[in-house]
């Protein structure tokens, strides 16, 4: 079965510092990997995805993610964090049937 794991429940960074939210995956075959963000009392918003090609994927709001096949990871990154980036972040993997989400990582960016 396909799955993703987010090893950190909480990530705290200072505004202006780089941020990383970690995700590892377990799939059979080619992985289709996604990142979503959820702000309080809102639905999930799509940030970016990796399907194939360049290992560095760029997405919305200045986020990017690096696909690493040897480490089975798909970490979300941003060079300079904003207070407004504070939210819940979900990594996900999908096949043709459904999408499976990680448990989520709460990112807090402090001024």
């Amino acid at each position, binding site marked *: 079965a396909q799955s993703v794991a987010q090893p950190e429940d909480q990530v705290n960074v200072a505004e202006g510092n780089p941020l990383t939210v970690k995700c590892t995956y377990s799939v059979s075959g080619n992985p289709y990997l996604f990142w979503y963000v959820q702000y309080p009392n809102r639905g999930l918003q799509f940030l970016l995805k990796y399907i194939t090609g360049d290992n560095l994927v760029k997405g919305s709001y200045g986020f990017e993610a690096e696909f690493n096949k040897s480490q089975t990871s798909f970490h979300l990154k941003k060079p300079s964090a904003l207070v407004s980036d504070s939210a*819940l972040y979900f990594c996900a993997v999908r096949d043709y049937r459904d999408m499976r989400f990680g448990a989520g990582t709460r990112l807090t960016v402090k001024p």
Partner: protein
Amino acid sequence: DTAVSQTPKYLVTQMGNDKSIKCEQNLGHDTMYWYKQDSKKFLKIMFSYNNKELIINETVPNRFSPKSPDKAHLNLHINSLELGDSAVYFCASSRSGRGTYEQYFGPGTRLTVT
């Protein structure tokens, strides 16, 4: 324009009642989904549905049933509500295919069963 909309946003009801949540998407997608997000924010797929196939997560009680009048709508009907059904329910949609397409989520319906 709202891409994926859900009604109601909040739903408070008593145990044993039957309720429905409506979902509509105007993205032209042919696959729709229902997710349940529990109090710990864990997301679980309940159903995925397109014109050809309904896929049910085997852990979902049969008190839950999706109903799709057309491609743009997927409603969730819940019979005999229980306290454990309290959660936020999200509708989503996507293009069908090999799994390469992202899903677009509605704003959620917070269901509270008392």
